[in-house]
């Protein structure tokens, strides 16, 4: 098992190497002059040339790539022309906010989607089934940023019960940094007040991102549960007197999880990519907002850095999903 995980982790390296090369080339052949943009409209050619030298942009491309690669390994992910800070430091600062947002929405989607999927499968074509089906259709079809705007309008502007945007009030200091996830840090610090504030800011963007995966997970779970309920072993369990609750939430759930798990894994990358839109709408200081800024200013080192970190998270998630298959289906357990 441990050996399998190690082997899978080693196999990630060539994938990441290929990705850096691809990103590097794409970033360099894009038109535009990031240095000129950063130096401002009044910069002299000498100043621009000097900045290029400082950033290493006057070197030939293979040398730049090699410098970039060796830098990556040693934690030097290049400089952001726009923030004038190391990209790695920026990512370390923005990543927790994105992680918090992504996993909060995934949590909402899983915790609500799976039980709803089970119940709508059991009460097929009942009132709950029809109601959730309608909402699910809307949830899948509606763009996240639009849903985000609607939520802002309803809960922040009209009802005024949740903050419009941001992650934490500027005038207050967030809980002590442990994980960088404010809600979790607040729990660790035992600060109930900070937890409420962090959660109230997290709620709207997380819901905006959660609706689509929630709907998909629910529909997926419903379909696989209906299939599992037809299986012979469910009849045997019923014939031997096990209660419906035990059959559904223990014996059927585990069997129906396999295909839903695939969807959940895929949604991690979908959510990471989606932060670009939702973080912009909610002014959420995460990787998405950082990447958007970088793209708009043609600042390519942060773009590569963000893409790379998202790729790493995605690949690790896929590994976790593969391992979880073994939990739900003992036949595919890895030795």
């Amino acid at each position, binding site marked *: 098992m441990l050996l399998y995980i190690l082997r899978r982790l080693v196999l990630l390296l060539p994938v990441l190497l290929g990705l850096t090369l691809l990103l590097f080339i794409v970033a360099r052949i894009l038109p535009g002059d990031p240095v000129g943009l950063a130096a401002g409209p009044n910069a002299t050619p000498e100043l621009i040339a000097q900045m290029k030298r400082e950033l290493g942009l006057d070197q030939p491309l293979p040398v730049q790539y090699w410098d970039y690669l060796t830098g990556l390994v040693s934690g030097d992910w290049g400089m952001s022309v726009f923030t004038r800070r190391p990209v790695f430091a920026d990512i370390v600062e923005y990543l927790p906010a994105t992680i918090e947002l992504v996993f909060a929405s995934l949590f909402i989607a899983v915790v609500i989607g799976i039980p709803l999927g089970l119940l709508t499968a059991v009460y097929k074509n009942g009132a709950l089934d029809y109601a959730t089906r309608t909402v699910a259709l809307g949830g899948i079809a509606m763009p996240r940023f639009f849903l985000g705007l609607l939520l802002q309008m309803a809960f922040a502007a009209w009802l005024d019960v949740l903050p419009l945007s941001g992650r934490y009030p500027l005038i207050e200091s967030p809980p002590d940094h442990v994980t960088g996830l404010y809600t979790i840090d607040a729990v660790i610090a035992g600060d109930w007040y900070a937890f409420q504030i962090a959660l109230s800011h997290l709620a709207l963007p997380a819901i905006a991102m959660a609706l689509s995966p929630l709907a998909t997970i629910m529909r997926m779970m419903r379909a696989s549960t209906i299939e599992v309920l037809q*299986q*012979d*072993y469910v*009849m*045997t*369990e*019923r*014939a*031997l*007197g*096990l*209660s419906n609750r*035990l059959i559904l939430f223990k*014996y059927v759930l*585990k*069997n129906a999880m396999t295909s839903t798990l695939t969807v959940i894994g895929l949604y991690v990358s979908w959510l990471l990519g989606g932060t670009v839109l939702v973080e912009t709408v909610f002014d959420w200081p995460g990787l998405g907002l950082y990447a958007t800024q970088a793209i708009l200013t043609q600042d390519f080192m942060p773009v590569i850095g963000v893409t790379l970190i998202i790729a790493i998270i995605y690949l690790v998630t896929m590994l976790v999903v593969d391992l979880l298959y073994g939990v*739900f*289906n*003992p*036949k595919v357990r890895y030795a």
Partner: protein
Amino acid sequence: MTLLDIRNLNLAMKSYEGETQILHGIDLKIERGEIWGMVGETGSGKSLTGLSVSRLVPSPPGRYVAGSIKFRGKDVLQATDREMRGLRGRHIGMIFQDPTTNLNPAFRIGTQLVDVALHAGHADPSVLGLNPGASRGDLKKAARRAAVEMLEKVGIAKAAERIHDYPHQFSGGMRQRALIAMAMIGKPDLLIADEPTTALDVSVQAQILRLIHDLVTERNIGVLLITHNLGVVAQICSHVAVMYRGRILEAGKVDDVLKRPSHSYTQALLHSVPTAHTKRGELKGLNGLMPETAA
């Protein structure tokens, strides 16, 4: 008191073409110690009769038009869902045809056995050798012990270790043994076995039949063995009922029915069984197909 007394059982099924009667006035009485074989072609209503005893026919589409199924004097067709659940696993054990699909692939054999044992033990702690009012912890411990014992009893070697296996680590014959263990762990009074050996190869068939025979004689319980194999009936049954198109044509002691069949259908059925001495071209099939039930 008669263990199982089915009287004038009439079952109808709804479909898009309307309601069709499937079972026409089934009468059957099973006493403790009797092993009833129920034979008939595919679609003759054998399995639905068996499922009806545990009231496992989904409704809708199923609907009992008339009749009663008295188990230990109480009509299961009138029982509440809660009462039914109390009967299942504890008083009525069931075994189905295909051992590869009837065990849950995602759970250890032991987990599945223990859950059935716990269900039976909650209803009646004496099943697990405990006094009434036994604590949860005691029930769990006893259920685990009973699971190992039962698995040993059905002939799984090193049961204490194999109980941690998943179904895919068991062979087909072992899985059917495990399913028999699940059906018998609640110490039922009646065992319904729906083609328990059809999916197994011949040598394993004989072992499984012997196992069922030994277990039911030892515990002196009633058995309804559904099969389309007359050889199986001749081997282990004391009584036999011949079904055709939702009716019981003939029923009685195995010796009487198989040696002196009175109904022409039974005779035809007997002639369609090949033996080692049957010559090419001698085997008689039954003419015609089962008629469409929806008419």
